[in-house]
Structure formats: structure tokens, C-alpha cells
């Protein structure tokens, strides 16, 4: 690990300026991902700006929304009264991720910005376009059991990346139509959650549409009817403390057995949380049934492309969608 300077500001502007004014400076919050990356030599900031003492921990009700400060801990969010009451899907997703200890450290902002868990990204001896653009993607033609089936793009070439975004929380946030509030040297701006994370395209090194000197201040979740018919389903290789093979966040508004609104988002299938718009369309206005859910899931899978070791996701993903929809709709 490269030596670094340490700075602990207490004011937002100080923090943003500190990163903006130093060539290789990084914000650090919970540290659960960045320190891991630094130990492995994947991230090598020369200055760490510790933002843990900025006033960004609040979880509060605002006009038409719930606002969650970027430094709110995953564990605090998961058990917060307002979250449980208004957005239980978010609490479910958070509790499905990591471990008790990690949730006590990881922040909402850090969770959003966490790196992929593609093992090639973590091995500095091997090519990886995300770590080192245009060095090649080792997962293509390599071990790609955990990799993406959506959003890979038309052409696969030397710039490609088939890594997936590992967050559980983000899958729920996309389903809940959240917005990310950020602050940079030029001031604040809002980014719709659907536009926050990127597909790899030609720049797989970039995970999000965020400048390195921009700081996430909060996540805003609009009030919604999604309190009853929701479910977060996570499929993994062991019963807990593992990243998803695939995961599904479902949020439905059901009126007299008819689906008024539907949100269906998958994790573990793409470079970003993957919203199943086509599946949602199938569900809209229809009467709940397993058959309908199967049709929706099949519609959602259109365009999925498997690599050598992850063809099972083509079957697992729709199965998981149907199961999550059934649980959310409370049919068995």
C-alpha cells in the first residue's frame, strides 16, 4: 500500500475542495471496499479525505420523500423506523448483504460506489479492462460463472467488460426510483438512480456517472405505494455472507388482484442494477397469477446473453423473478 496523507474535514466544502485540489485524492467513508482495494494495490490514493465527520448521517422525512444521508450506516438504515415503515424493500435488501459487522461500517454512499467483485479485477497480475482500460477482459474466455448476462453490448472486443455490480441495496434503490444527491466543486446536482450507474461500453473503468471530486450527499426515495407487495430475493452459493448469483427486487401495487404498478429489478446480471422494463410492461394491468409472472420473466430475459460458465443464469434469473413476484404478490 502506497503511503498517503490523511485529512479529516468537518465541512462539506473542505472535503470537496480537498479532493478537487489534489491529483490523486479519494474520499473515504466506511472503508470496507476502498481499504480492501488499497491493500491489494488496486487503488493507490496519495491522500485520503476522511468524510466520516461530515454531517451526512441523517435519515429524515422530506416533502414527498425519504432522504437518507450518504453516511448513514447500512445497519442503521436497515432498522430505521421510517425505512421499515415506508420502504421495507430497502431494509430487506440491506439485510441480505454482507454481515452484521460490515453493515455497521458500510455507508449508503459507499455501498452505491462499491466496486465489482469480479475476481479478475482483484488480481493485479491479470488483464482487466475495468482496472486497466484496454488491457483486456480476463473474464471473457475465462471463469465467468458470476458474470453479466445483460448490458454487455453488441460487440465484444478488447475493451469489453462483463463484470457485475455487486450491491444488494442498489437493486432495491432502483426499484424504488431513488435519486442521488451529489456535490462537486460547482455545487449540488441530482442524478436519477437509473442514470447513476453505467454500462461498461468503452469505459468499463467508470462505474458511475460521477466525477471523482463529487461527493454523494444523500439518497432520496420518493414516497410510493410499495409497502406491502414487495420482496427481495437473493440466490447465492451459501446461505449467507455471499454475493448474489442473481437477486431480484420486486415492488408491486396491487388493487383487487390487478397489478397497478410494477417494478422489477435484478442484481448480479449486469454492470449495473438491471431494471426489467419489458417484464414490468407484461405485468401492468394484469391479474396476478404464476402464469403471468412466468410470461413477465420470459419477457424480461429477452436480450440476455450467456458466457461459457453462466448459462445457468438464463434459467435461474427468470425462476428467481417468478419466485420473488409470487412472494411479493402473496400467492403460492
Amino acid at each position, binding site marked *: *500500500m502506497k*503511503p*498517503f*496523507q*490523511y*485529512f*479529516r474535514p*468537518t465541512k462539506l466544502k473542505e472535503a470537496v475542495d480537498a479532493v478537487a485540489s489534489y491529483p490523486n485524492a479519494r474520499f*473515504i467513508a*466506511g*472503508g*470496507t471496499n476502498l*481499504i*480492501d482495494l488499497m*491493500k491489494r494495490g488496486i487503488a493507490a490514493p*496519495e491522500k*485520503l479525505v*476522511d468524510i*466520516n465527520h461530515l454531517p451526512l448521517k441523517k435519515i429524515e422525512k422530506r416533502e414527498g420523500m425519504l432522504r437518507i444521508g450518504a453516511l448513514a450506516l447500512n*445497519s442503521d438504515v436497515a432498522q430505521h423506523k421510517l425505512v421499515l415503515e415506508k420502504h421495507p424493500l430497502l431494509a430487506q435488501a440491506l439485510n441480505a448483504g*454482507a*454481515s*452484521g*459487522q*460490515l453493515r*455497521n*461500517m458500510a455507508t449508503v454512499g459507499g455501498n452505491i460506489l462499491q466496486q465489482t467483485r469480479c475476481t479478475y479485477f482483484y488480481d493485479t497480475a491479470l488483464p482487466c479492462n475495468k482496472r486497466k482500460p484496454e488491457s483486456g477482459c480476463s473474464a471473457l474466455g475465462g471463469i465467468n460463472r458470476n458474470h453479466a448476462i445483460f448490458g454487455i453490448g453488441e460487440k465484444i472486443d478488447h475493451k469489453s467488460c462483463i463484470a457485475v455490480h455487486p450491491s444488494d441495496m442498489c437493486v432495491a434503490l432502483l426499484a424504488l426510483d431513488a435519486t442521488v444527491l451529489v456535490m462537486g466543486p460547482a455545487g449540488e446536482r441530482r442524478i436519477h438512480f437509473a442514470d447513476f450507474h453505467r454500462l461498461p461500453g468503452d469505459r468499463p473503468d467508470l462505474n458511475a456517472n460521477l466525477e471523482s471530486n463529487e461527493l454523494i450527499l444523500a439518497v432520496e426515495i420518493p414516497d410510493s405505494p410499495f409497502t406491502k407487495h414487495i420482496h427481495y430475493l437473493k440466490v447465492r452459493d451459501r*446461505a*449467507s*455472507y455471499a454475493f448474489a448469483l442473481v437477486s431480484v427486487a420486486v415492488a408491486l401495487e396491487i388493487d383487487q388482484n390487478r397489478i397497478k404498478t410494477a417494478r422489477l429489478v435484478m442484481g448480479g446480471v449486469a454492470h449495473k442494477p438491471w431494471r426489467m422494463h419489458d417484464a414490468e410492461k407484461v405485468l401492468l394491468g394484469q391479474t396476478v397469477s404464476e402464469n403471468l409472472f412466468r410470461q413477465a420473466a420470459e419477457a424480461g430475459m429477452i436480450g440476455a446473453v450467456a458466457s461459457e460458465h453462466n448459462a445457468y443464469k438464463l434459467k435461474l434469473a427468470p425462476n428467481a423473478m417468478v419466485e420473488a413476484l409470487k412472494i411479493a404478490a402473496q400467492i403460492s
Partner: protein
Amino acid sequence: MFEEKPLNGETPENDDVGHQEDRRFFLKQSIALAGLTFVPGGFLQAGEQDEVPVGNAEKVKLTLTINGAKRRLTIDPRVTLLDLLREKSGLTGTKKGCDFGQCGACTVHVDGQRVLSCLTFAVMQHGRKVITIEGLASNEQLHPMQEAFIKHDGFQCGYCTPGQIMSAVSCIREGRANSETEIQEYMSGNLCRCGAYPNIVNAIMEVKTNGQKV
């Protein structure tokens, strides 16, 4: 003849390392207070010399309360809380299992919450209160969770044990020990390769059921 004295090299009772760090800190602090600003400008906040860790790339100083004792240390900012405990404070009860936040062996309590000491730089914990396995028992009386682990044989090799115990105490404090299934889920961040899991769960269940203060 048989002698019961400790082997050469075993951990001495007192903690010399920490004391030495204290002395060095005081020297440097007095220099700083005398107005010799060896620390780059902009890193010192006016009037906060004592509260805010400051420093350049080589050394930062910080204050931590570890198991009730306030310690002032000057360290390389790259030192994790785990390495500070094990390498610089003589507190080797907290274990390094993976160093990547994937095993839970390094679990300690910071301001009462269980966290992974391998995934935080010590300097980030400046001003906080850290409790390690060595600080869980009060004097000679073991903590109820420690007693329960012995009774239920909640370990074999013992290496994951301090982390399991620190996590188990938190599991009850967090209100997540209401059933076997809940305990299993909320303890899943603590790996045990010897496979003592059922015994650990039984130990936690007993402490919880007995309503002992943890």
C-alpha cells in the same frame, strides 16, 4: 527440573510498546505546541491539535481509548486498527484471519458497535472507544458469553473465537438473538473452519435465554 516461568519471548504482562509510543507522542506534541510546525499547513485545524489526527504521509498521531485506557500513539496512517492492536499495542487477542473483511476474526467493538478492525485505518478511529476480547471480562470474572463458550465448547482451535465472542455479544445487544435461525444469520460474518457453529449458537442461546447482561 520443571520450571513454570514463561518461555523467553512470551508476551510480558505490561505493555511496553504502548508506553514508548506515549513518550514519543509527548515529545512531538510539545515541539508542535512550541510553534515548530513540522506538519504541513492546512492539515491542522486551529485549536484542535488535541482532537484531530494530523500528519503527513509518514506519521499521524491519534488518541484512542482501548479497553478503557486512553492511548496516544503516533503511527503510519496505513496501519489498520487490527494491526495497531496486534503489532503496536500487544493486544493479540484480536485475530487476523483474512485481512480483507471476509472472515470476522478481527471483530472488535468501536463505540459499542461490532466492526471489522482489518477494514478501517486506525487513524479513522481517533477519539473512539475500542473494546477488544481482552477488555470484555471485568477483572478475573469472565463475561457470560466467554463462560458460555467454554461450557458449550464453542471452539476448537480458538482462532476465530475472540471474533465470534465479540460478535455474539453484539448479536444479543442488537436484538438479533431471538431464535436459532436469527442467530445463525446474524453470526454469519464470523467464519469458523473447525465447524463449532452449532456449539456457538447454543452458547448464544443460553446467554440470551438466561437474560444475562451482556
